[in-house]
């Protein structure tokens, strides 16, 4: 059986792919805590370097601050302390070039699939011919051709998530942030959507950061997977998968897949038990 790829730190440059696309330094987020009251320390301090064009996943126990990390990186939430940069510029609001796909259904119920996808382009003032071209491409790419004129209520959960991905994709983001986008889908659909996500990643050459609960999904899709501790979330491990870019869900049959997934689970189990307030059972059990 092959050994898993070596563990590296969240900021350690890898050979051959060292251009930093987004950088977090000492990012901390505390909610509330005004007027002398103790706030909720949700995240950090976290350091992270996202390399241009890599697929990075984040796993961690519930409530460890994964979504907060994404909110800070997308500029939706300012950090309490620390600095966040995207393409060398400080993130002070939602930067141009970042697209987010949320776990919840974010489709606009009052718009058809094609109008949903065109929404951001129209807001950005892109000309009509270009909008039509990009929307047609995204609809085809995401397999929504037969549903272009349908309303989200007429689609399944998986199809609606495709609409959300297509809506992000047409804006041509250079950094795509995905917050458990397949959380509500069944396992089979998740695997297939994972393949589509890899296809999308290869075509767009964008940097991808995926927040997920699913350890197999993280290992299957990513170049690197960061493991977060229980709240306040910190990176306790980074696993470099070493998969080739031309991969798909069949990597699950690779012996390294099991070893890496097991490694993630060993760490996550301890962190999850901390959240549940239990003692970690000894290894003899």
């Amino acid at each position, binding site marked *: 059986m092959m050994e898993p790829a070596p563990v590296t730190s969240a900021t350690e440059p890898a050979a051959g792919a060292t251009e930093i696309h987004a950088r977090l330094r000492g990012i901390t987020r505390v909610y509330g805590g005004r007027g002398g009251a103790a706030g909720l320390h949700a995240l950090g301090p976290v350091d992270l370097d996202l390399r241009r064009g890599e697929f990075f996943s984040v796993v961690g126990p519930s409530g460890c601050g994964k979504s907060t990390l994404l909110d800070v990186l*997308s500029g*939706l939430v300012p950090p309490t302390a620390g600095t966040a940069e995207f393409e060398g510029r400080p993130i002070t*609001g*939602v930067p141009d070039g970042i*697209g*987010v796909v*949320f776990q*919840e*259904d*974010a489709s*606009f*119920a*009052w*718009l058809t699939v094609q109008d949903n996808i065109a*929404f*951001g382009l129209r*807001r950005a003032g892109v000309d009509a011919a270009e909008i039509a071209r990009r929307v047609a491409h995204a609809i085809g790419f995401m397999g929504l051709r037969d549903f272009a004129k349908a*309303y*989200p*209520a007429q689609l399944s959960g998986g199809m609606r998530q495709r609409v959300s991905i297509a809506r992000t994709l047409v804006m041509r983001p250079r950094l795509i942030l995905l917050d458990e986008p397949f959380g509500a889908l069944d396992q089979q659909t998740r695997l297939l959507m994972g393949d589509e996500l890899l296809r999308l990643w290869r075509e767009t050459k964008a940097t991808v950061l995926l927040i997920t609960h699913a350890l197999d999904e993280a290992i299957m899709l990513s170049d690197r997977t960061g493991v977060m501790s229980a709240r306040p979330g910190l990176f306790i491990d980074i696993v470099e998968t070493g998969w080739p870019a031309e991969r798909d869900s069949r990597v699950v049959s690779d012996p390294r897949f099991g070893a890496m997934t097991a490694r993630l689970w060993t760490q996550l189990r301890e962190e999850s038990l901390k959240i549940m307030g239990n003692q970690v059972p000894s290894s003899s059990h």
Partner: protein
Amino acid sequence: MSSVGTLRFAVIAIMVGLLELACRTGLIGPTVIIPPSAMVESLWQILAEGDLTTDILSTFGNVLAAAVLSVVVGFVAGLAIHPLPRLRGALEPLLASYYAIPTFMFYPLFIVFFGVGNRAIIAIAFLLAVVSMVTSTLTGLDRIPPILRKTAKMYRMNRVSTALLIELPATIPHLFTGIKLSVAYAFIGVIASEFILSGAGIGYSISYAYNNFNNRAMYGLMLLVVVAVTTVNMVLHSIDRRFQERSRR
């Protein structure tokens, strides 16, 4: 027509048929209620002769003005109150008990402020209708999934764009409850006000016919109001249903 629609139509037809029978057999005297067929005849005559066209148009114009005003002002007020929880907390008990106060008792004040005529009528109908729109807007805004506002932020939309392009369409299914109520209250407010504040309009004409023992005209005009309100309500209901179907998540 759906089976529910057929049943609804059958119930109405049976009730109208029974009333017709009771009137034609003398069970109900013509000084009390005239047969429904005579009401239809009278309404047709009123519309064909055109003597009351000005009154009818005046009433519908006032209803339209009061309904549009209450929907627009109610929506904007709801939008303004929603992000201010303290103000909302102070206002909500007042809004909840608003309909316990009979607005019509203030009609002398309306005459003082607006004089006798359309402006006073529209003001009363507006006051009657606007609160239902405010409360529906607040409920609708409460029910917008937070993810939609987060998405608006991702598109770097300002407050006005978010309100117009996200919040307004997202709340429309809920707003329709308010719109339907506002239109109904506008009809009630206008027609009831015309009884006491006006020398024109359908309400005034019904009152005039009643005072002159002209049952045919009175019931013809009543039928006109019932048909108009039912038609408007059915149209709004059908649009509402379409929005509800689209907004299922």
